[in-house]
């Protein structure tokens, strides 16, 4: 897609009734989000003063990469394959990130063997580590099938929300 096609597309979307528009083809991923669609619903929710509700613990889940963050408006984000592997094709690298802040453990208890090692082949839904937050052991499952290439975090180390825990080479 050249810049003129992109511009035409953006104009078309801005005139349309669509709130969001996504296109994926030949290694290109494009997402257009209208500013009005992004702010509706979120404005007010974060305004103060507000009443607090106790939140449930986040569920064990993978935080997908290429999170559409609050980009420039109108948000034309190119999530290129090189920058953020989407993890759909065999052979690509998928980054498993921490769904919560807490402490990273590679095994279910200090005497148990690690869930996975570098080189382990994992299945989708297989438990691969634990992130402990407020004394609760949250078992983290792999969202993808593939081979563990790298574990950048050491056992017992604190992790932030969104921190990379594993790099996985996807299998078909």
């Amino acid at each position: 897609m050249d810049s003129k096609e992109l511009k035409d597309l953006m104009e078309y979307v801005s005139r349309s009734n669509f709130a969001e528009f996504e296109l994926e083809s030949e290694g290109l991923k494009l997402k257009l989000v209208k500013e009005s669609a992004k702010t509706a619903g979120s404005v007010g929710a974060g305004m103060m003063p507000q009443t607090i509700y106790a939140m449930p613990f986040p569920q064990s889940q993978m935080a997908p990469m290429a999170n559409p963050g609050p980009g420039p408006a109108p948000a034309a984000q190119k999530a290129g394959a090189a920058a953020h592997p989407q993890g759909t094709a065999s052979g690509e690298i998928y980054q498993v990130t921490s769904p919560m802040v807490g402490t990273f453990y590679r095994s279910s208890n200090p005497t148990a063997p690690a869930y996975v090692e570098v080189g382990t082949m994992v299945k989708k839904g297989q438990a691969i580590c634990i992130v402990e937050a407020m004394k609760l052991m949250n078992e983290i499952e792999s969202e993808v099938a593939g081979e563990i290439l790298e574990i950048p975090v050491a056992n017992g180390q604190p992790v932030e929300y969104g921190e990379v825990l594993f790099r996985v080479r996807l299998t078909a």
Partner: protein
Amino acid sequence: MFKKILIANRGEIALRIVYACRELGIKTVAVHSEPDKDSLHVRFADEDVCIGPARSSESYLNISSVIAAAEITDTDAIHPGYGFLAESAAFAEVCKACKIKFIGPKPNVIATMGEKSKAREVARKAGVPVLPGSDGVVEELDAALVIAHEIGFPVIVKASAGGGGRGMRIAQDAKELARVFPVAREESRAAFSIPDVYIEKYLPNPRHIEFQILADEKGNMIHLGERECSIQRRHQKVIEEAPSTALSADLRRRMAEAAIKTARAVKYENAGTIEFLLQDGKFYFIEMNTRVQVEHPVTEMVTGVDIVKEQIRIAAGEKLSRKQEDIVIRGHSIECRINAEDPETFMPAPGLITTYHPPGGPGVRVDSAVHSDCRISPYYDSMVAKLITHGGNRDEAISRMRRSLDVMVVEGIKTSIPLQKKILSDPDFQKGNISTRFLERYVR
């Protein structure tokens, strides 16, 4: 004293708390959502932890994430700032269970004073005047009508869990009350998940006056005088000042006594604010805020007391650094809230600040966490900066505010600066001739 404090907030108040900790030699931990990773409170804190995505409920309001961040950084106290978890009794309770000091009052005090109908009962039992109204929550329209006829129309229906004007409705007569009563309950349920409302006499033209309280954990309690916050729109404060032009020395003394009596009735600890409405020389307790207020700087300017440092010292078990007789009000201070919003419609106007130049010079203070090339996020509140001036008297504070507003540059987004300029040049404002309905002449 604490070694490390985690700041469970963002924006200017998080930065304000970083400053206080630096002055006290305490290390700081900033927590932040993903889009806030480059913000100034993160940059100037000693450590930082990303606790979740943009949405507050999954980051700044997520109790388990905040606590987990405190645990992995080995924090011994948490300052909640204002908003977010600052008035969550549940959060204060969890902090206690995790042996992390919550910088604020005890959980049960937050719970009692956070429920407006209960707080009203506390004040009434302490002998402090409250507006005529219901004893606690009113559940049925019939009961509401009986109370309204007793106290006389107009009446106001308020959410017991309320704040920010939500769940609040005025009724001029029985017909209107029948219409708005279920609406207020529904709005209250939607905003606070409890439909409880209570009823008060509605004052048509009051002034909003609040008293700053400081209390240590050894039973010492003082007040730092009043703030006038009558310039508001839909119960959102726009300009605050200290002292108020409406109080005589005698009235000030009586209101301060009432404030202290109310706070003593719940054995209050740390910083808090007692809010009153004042009309025709009579004052009425309306609510208590169990946290540091947005407008705390005007009190700091006229008393010289650093309220945030006092909060930290109190939570660390220290005695109040001053006695009541040490508190002297010097000069006059005004605060203008500069928001990212359309000055005509008040609609939030988030976006990228391309140029930012804060004013300076004698008697000027700017509490802000913005800078050139920074984005005002649509996810959080729209405050850009608090512009505060101090002068030997009110006229000097006003002229300093006017020249500061003139040279303050915020480009790329719409701000409330034009509205603030209009208010500051209004002859009635300049004479101190104001009420909570003052802004109606400029905005609806």
